[in-house]
């Protein structure tokens, strides 16, 4: 509509009006050039300020991980430790003997859910996108509908089911409800639908079975979306708190996320250890993010939904 207005004004008015418009545009451009330089500086200043706000808490945490407990809690707080000590990194493994277990449990749970989600979601995604079977679209729509159901609705029944299966307080109970997520299938279907069909037909003519086609044709083409799925699944399990809190009871079965809270809650809080420990939770995720960040963005913008 605005564009139309301009056209009307530019063509409809007389030549005199047009000349005045041109002159006005000239002086405006000069003013703009000056304003633009100031603007660029301002934008950099704001962008840097925001960076400080988002990263400062991590900087303080890293700094604290090199401090003694008394220095972590002293007033006024200092940013640079008086003397660098790696004691916290050693102590976190020895003072809390379960720390390595938590790290291992988290790694195992994340690895299992990543592998099962990549396999089950891509397999289901291939079937929903390519194979014809009665009720396919209805089933797919129904599973999409479950994205509307908030997680807290299913929390209680999940626990009861896992309890019935005798899997409370075990790694199996922890990962079982999450071996295939709706979001993953959604992501895969979107991606596989966009793959040209000719490639599969060639494989079929070569006598490839459907599973063979899936393994040899579809999976290699899905690499980018599988990377996104890997990251989202890893993040979901590695960072999860609520479900492990409910299903795990014994400290030796805890994930790192749960263990960190346990470390804090035990008695008096050893902040230097809690903060150092939390870095072990943050850094693996951060590394994966930095390595694969374009898939993060792709995944979110492809779906507009939380993974």
């Amino acid at each position, binding site marked *: 509509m605005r564009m139309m207005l301009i056209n009307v004004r530019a063509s409809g008015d007389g030549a005199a009006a047009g000349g005045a418009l041109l002159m006005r545009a000239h002086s405006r451009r000069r003013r703009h050039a000056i304003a633009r330089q100031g603007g660029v500086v301002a934008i950099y200043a704001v962008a840097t300020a925001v960076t400080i706000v988002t990263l400062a*808490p991590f900087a303080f945490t890293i700094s604290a991980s090199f401090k003694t407990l008394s220095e972590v809690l002293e007033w006024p707080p200092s940013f640079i430790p008086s003397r660098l000590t790696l004691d916290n990194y050693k102590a976190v493994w020895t003072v809390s003997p379960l720390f390595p277990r938590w790290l291992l449990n988290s790694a195992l749970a994340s690895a299992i859910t990543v592998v099962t989600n990549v396999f089950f979601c891509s397999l289901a995604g291939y079937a929903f996108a390519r194979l014809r*079977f009665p009720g396919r679209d209805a089933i797919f729509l129904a*599973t999409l509908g479950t994205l509307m159901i908030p997680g807290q609705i299913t929390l*209680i*029944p*999940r626990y009861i089911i896992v309890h019935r299966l005798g899997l409370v307080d075990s790694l199996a109970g922890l990962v079982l409800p999450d071996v295939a997520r709706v979001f993953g299938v959604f992501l895969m279907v979107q991606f596989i639908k966009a793959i040209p069909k000719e490639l599969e037909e060639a494989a079929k003519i070569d006598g490839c079975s459907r599973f063979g086609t899936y393994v040899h044709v579809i999976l290699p083409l899905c690499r980018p979306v599988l990377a996104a799925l890997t990251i989202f699944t890893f*993040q979901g399990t*590695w*960072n999860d708190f609520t479900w492990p809190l409910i299903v795990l009871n014994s400290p030796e079965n805890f994930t790192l996320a749960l263990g960190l809270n346990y470390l804090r809650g035990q008695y008096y809080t050893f902040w230097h250890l*809690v903060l150092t420990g939390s870095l072990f939770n943050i850094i693996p995720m951060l590394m994966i993010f930095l390595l694969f960040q374009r898939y993060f963005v792709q995944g979110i913008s492809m779906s507009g939904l939380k993974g």
Partner: protein
Amino acid sequence: MRASPGGRPGTMWSRMAASLRKESVSEAITGYLFVSPFLVTIGTFIFFAAVYAFYLSFHKYDLFSPPEFVGLANYRKLLTNTDFRIALRNVAVYTAGVVPTQTAVAIALAVLANQKLKLRGFFRSAYYVPCITSSVASSLIFMWLYYKQGIINYILSLLRLPSNIDWLGNPSTALPAIMTLVIWTTSAYFMVVFLAALQDIPTSVYEASKIDGASGWQTFWHVTLPLLRPSIFLVVVLGTIGCMQVFDQVYIMTRGGPLKSTMSIVYLVYTEAFGDLKFGYGAAMAFALFAVIFVLTLIQRKYLDIKIEY
């Protein structure tokens, strides 16, 4: 049976149909096989679980004795329960504070991250880091930052602002403190949604507004923002659904205290179900929350969802 050349078309067709049927039957079986691991998981832990939760909400159940039908008693109890009312109010305040703020911050971050800056990649990643941090790590770090003799109070004292505040220990500041943490962690997630939307706006739209002599601010206000409306709707809905279910931060930082000032509905569901083994009552509470979320989503759809045409 051998096919004779020039045989009756009927047999040819029926044979083709048979082989087609055989083909499609095998395709269907493969299809079901391929979706079965996914469907069994979702069927058990989402479909069945949701129905089971609904069933439980009309029962009294403690995991050990069989469920006992109590009709609407659980729901009736909710209406008179003061804790539930407090939690509902807390969550309303929390959502009303967090959703508009994080949406505005996310738009600002997206506009900023969309500028042609030299270090654009760095800035985008830096903004996203809080978002990949687990709720536990960010809650623990902020607990320490919010400490009475902690860094946040120290920064406030440098700015000569009131600084001797026990952020998480004071009923009037604990909820805003958690809200601030959540805004800090989730804004960047929604930034990505807006960034994608910004990149979809055709440059011709901006050129038109430039020719029209609109300032940067005017362009943003009258051109960019209206075009972002569908994304704003999405972000507000997703943000509201997320906010209504706040739990981790409350559990880790305050346990609903002080004086129930941070008690959320999901925290209450957790304590009723897993603390007191009142699974039926907990399920009823979860469904009440679901109803509230559903109604809010519908209301937002009415006011925010407007189709955009370029």
